[in-house]
Every structure is written in structure tokens, then in C-alpha cells.
């Protein structure tokens, strides 16, 4: 035993338990997905995956029970929804933050506060009236309905405003001296300077979009528009004759895309999250 290990073992122990708390459930579900549904129903879950059972992934991806979408379609809808929300939010938030930071116009403060008061108003508290608005706009069961209402974002606007406020006035003066107009300044100066924030926000918003549940539950009743998160909760719902290995495989597939994005972009994401929200 080295000195460092002798001194640090309690911290290692706590961290290992902490890691196990998150990795083990997912591992169990992955191992379960490769086993036969009969064995799972008998409660004979093994910690060791059965490699022969991996074909369940091909099955759930392509085949679907009547009245449901195959998993690949649900994954595509979730991906489309997450990307549309992430890009949509970033574009309109950059534009509005740019307007309130670099321009003076009538009602500027009113615009800012209008955006600001929606900061923490989650969709959950305005379920019923928002549904009414959606049906007035004929957005029920459409891709637009899934995405457009979630694109308004006070958080992202505030974040970009804070980033833009740190741009020194001298930079802007220099740009104007060189004859740069508002669009060139935005494209050639502001966006490159805020690249790290853009990347961080992309991760946060992608996860936000992918993980939506209540909103798609309300605005899409057609199984063709089911996201993967909706789809898997539906699979669990019909508990009597559930093919549990398929549910487990679907859960694993639903986790992979957002987890991959968080892990691959971890450095930017952590920095952007903690700097942006404080």
C-alpha cells in the first residue's frame, strides 16, 4: 500500500460506491436485455450479458408490435426533436440577446422583461391552456408542435447576454472603424468569441430536447409521432405481457445518444453549465 492510497482510501471508497450507484443499474438493464424474457419473468437476472441475446437490439430497432412505431423511428423523431430544439433555441436566443445588448430601441426594457419572466415557467404549470393554443394553431400531432413551443428560451437569452456584455467596447469600436456592419460583427466577432458557450449550450439543450416527456405526451397522440422516451413508458404501461428484454434494450438505446453527447463534450458542457447558471 502506497502512502497516497493509505491516506486516500476513504475518498476512493466513497467515489467507487457513488459510481456504482449509477453504473450498476444501467449495467443490470443492459445485461438483462440480452436474456430471454422467460428467464427475466422468473427473476433469474444474470450480471453477465448473454452475447447470443444481442439480437434483441436488431429486433426492437426494426420490428414493432401493432399500433406502435419501431424503435429506429422513435430514435429518429427524438433526434430530430432534440436537434431542432437545440439549434432553434440557440439561433433565436443569440439574435435576441444581440438585439438587447448591442442596440438601443424603443421598448427594449419591456422586451427584455417579457422574455425574463418566462425564465423558470416550466411547461408543467401551463399544461391545459397551452394545449388549447396548440389545437388552435393545428399543431397537434405535427413535428412543429413537438418543437416550436419549446424553442422560446429565457435562459439561453440571458446566458448570451452575459457573454456579450463581457465583450470590450474597444473591440466593437475597432470593428466599426473597419466598417463592419451589425451582421459582420455578429458573424466574424461575436460568434467565434462565444464558441465555447455555444458548444456548452448545445449539449444542455440537446439533452433537454431528447428528455422531454410531458410535452410530447400532450401534443402527439398519434403513435407515428412517438419519441423514444414516450415509447418506452408506453411499453412499460402494458405490464401484463411485457417482453421485458425488449423494454430493457429500448431503455439502453434511449440512453446512448444523450449520454454520448455529454461524455464527448464534457469539458465545455461543465464549464458552460456552471458559468452560465450562476
Amino acid at each position, binding site marked *: 500500500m502506497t502512502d497516497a492510497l493509505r491516506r486516500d482510501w476513504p475518498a476512493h471508497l466513497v467515489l467507487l460506491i457513488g459510481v456504482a450507484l*449509477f453504473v450498476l443499474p444501467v449495467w443490470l438493464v443492459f445485461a438483462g436485455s440480452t436474456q430471454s424474457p422467460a428467464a427475466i419473468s422468473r427473476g433469474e437476472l444474470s450480471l453477465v450479458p448473454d452475447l447470443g441475446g444481442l439480437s434483441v437490439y436488431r429486433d426492437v430497432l426494426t420490428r414493432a408490435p401493432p399500433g406502435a412505431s419501431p424503435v429506429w423511428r422513435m430514435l429518429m423523431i427524438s433526434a430530430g426533436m432534440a436537434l431542432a430544439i437545440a439549434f432553434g433555441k440557440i439561433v433565436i436566443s443569440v439574435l435576441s440577446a444581440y438585439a438587447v445588448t448591442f442596440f438601443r430601441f424603443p421598448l427594449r426594457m419591456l422586451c427584455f422583461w417579457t422574455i425574463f419572466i418566462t425564465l423558470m415557467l416550466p411547461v408543467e404549470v401551463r399544461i391545459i391552456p397551452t394545449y388549447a393554443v396548440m389545437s388552435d394553431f393545428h399543431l397537434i400531432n405535427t413535428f412543429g408542435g413537438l418543437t416550436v413551443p419549446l424553442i422560446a428560451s429565457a435562459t439561453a437569452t440571458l446566458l448570451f447576454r452575459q457573454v456579450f456584455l463581457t465583450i470590450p467596447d474597444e473591440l*466593437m*469600436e475597432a470593428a466599426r472603424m473597419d466598417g463592419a456592419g451589425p451582421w459582420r460583427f455578429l458573424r466574424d466577432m461575436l460568434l467565434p468569441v462565444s464558441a465555447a458557450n455555444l458548444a456548452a449550450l448545445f449539449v444542455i439543450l440537446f439533452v433537454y430536447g431528447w428528455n422531454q416527456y410531458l410535452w410530447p405526451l400532450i401534443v402527439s397522440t398519434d403513435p407515428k409521432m412517438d419519441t423514444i422516451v414516450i415509447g418506452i413508458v408506453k411499453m412499460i404501461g402494458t405490464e401484463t405481457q411485457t417482453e421485458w428484454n425488449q423494454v430493457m434494450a429500448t431503455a439502453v438505446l434511449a*440512453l446512448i445518444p444523450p*449520454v454520448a453527447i455529454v*461524455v464527448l463534450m464534457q469539458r465545455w458542457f461543465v464549464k458552460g453549465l456552471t458559468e452560465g447558471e*450562476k
Partner: protein
Amino acid sequence: MERRTIFGGRLLPAALVLPQLALTFFFFLWPAAQAIYYSVERQDPFGLNSQFAGLENFSDLFSDPLYLDSVQRTAVFVVCVCALSMAVALLLAVCADRELRGRGVYRTLLIWPYAIAPAISAVLWILLMHPQIGLIGRWLNRVGIPWDYKLNSFQAMLIVVLASAWKQVSYNFIFFLAGLQSIPRTVIEAARMDGARGARRFRTIVMPLLAPTTFFLIVINIVYAAFDTFPTILALTQGGPGKATETLVVKVYRDGIVNLDLGSSSAQSVVLMLAVIALTMVQFRFIGRKAAP
């Protein structure tokens, strides 16, 4: 803070904020106004006519024992979720902040659960705790502890608290770790030289310096536990058994979408909106984020 140099023009900035304002109006302000409107209207049982009812829906709400039960249940749920997820996250963050071998790996392995959807967290917990197929659920029954969260109210509450807190640990961990890392090493060293031991150093030096992070996280966790856990509860217990896990948001959903009681569910929505606005104010008042442009 105001900028000294700005671009001229009025049409361009107006056009730039227009998309954001339009979305905010149609999907935030208009529905909120509708909720307020319906909350002071009373509909006949067929939904054909309605008339102005003043604050009747609200007084009905606050004299309804079912609603007050739900308020109390939500409070217990929120406190448990916040306390549990923040305590575990703080412990892990304190350990991960030390100069350990392999701390980068630990951090990644504790950060990835940020990506887990609340609904997916519920699915994972069902697959573990289900009385027939769940590994832990079956084991509990085998060793003689009767376990069925679909029948037992306490167990139902326990499992929604655990699943909700579990999902939130990584978020809190990220913030606590960032907070700890921003404490200058020299401050800690100075305390060490003065002879303050581990636990005392933590209580008198680290905790006060972490207070802004902690406070921020309390507000965020309250909002998370009260609102964002809706999918977790719906997937795990549907608010049952009976009403054992019916929090306020689940109740709005059941009353509005399932039972189509427009007046009462709108009044409930308005109450929740006021709560969220109050939390937002608290957040900005005490944390002092600059709000004006």
C-alpha cells in the same frame, strides 16, 4: 452594465427580438393569460356555458382536503428529494475535489447521469424494483420483506423519491464540484496551518464559501422536484396507489387532461405559476445575478 458603443437603427433590432417575443407571447404569455381567465370562470357540467365566478375556484381549491393533502405530500416529496440528492452530491464532490489518482475518471463517471431523462430514470427503477421481475424487488420479497410499490403507499413514495433524487445527483455534483474548485487553495492551507482539522475546516471555512452554490442549488432542486419529476412519477406509479404519490403537478394533469375539470385545473395552474414566479424572484434577489440589461 450598459455598453457605451452601440449600433444604430431601430428596425433591425426589433426584427432580431421578434421571433423570441412571438414564441414567448404565443406559448408562454397567452396560455398563462388563458389559465388566469379560466381560473375565474365556472363552467356548467357539459362545458357549454361558463360564467364569471370570481375567486370561487380558488376558495374551492383551498378548502378542498384533497388539494391540501396534495400540497402537503408535495412538500414532503420536495424536501426529501432535495435533501437526499444534495447530500449525496456534496459528499461525492468533496471526495472528487481531492488530489486523487484517477479523479478525472471518477468525475466523468459521475457527470454522465446528467443525460438520463426523468422518464428513463423511472424505467430503470422499475426494472430494478419491480416486485416480480426487478432484481432488488424480488430479493426483498424473498428475504421476507413484503415489497410492492404498486400496493403500498409508503413504498410508492419511497421509490419516487429515490428515483427522482438519483437522477438529480449528477447535476448537483457538477455545481458543488465547481463551487469547491473555486475556493482558493491558500484559504484551505491557512486554516490547516491554524490547526483546524478536517471536519472543523469543512464546517467553518468550506461551507460558508459554498453557501451561494448551495442556495442556488436549493432553489433549482425545489423547482426540479416540484415540476420536472412529473414523468418519473407518472411512469412509476401514475400518482398511486390511490393518491399516495399525487403531487401538485400530477394533480393538475389528472384533473385537467384526464378528468377535464377546466376551472379547477386552471386555478391550480395559476397557483403553481405564482409559486414559480416567487422562486424566480427569490433566486435573483438573494443570488444577485444582474438582471437589467
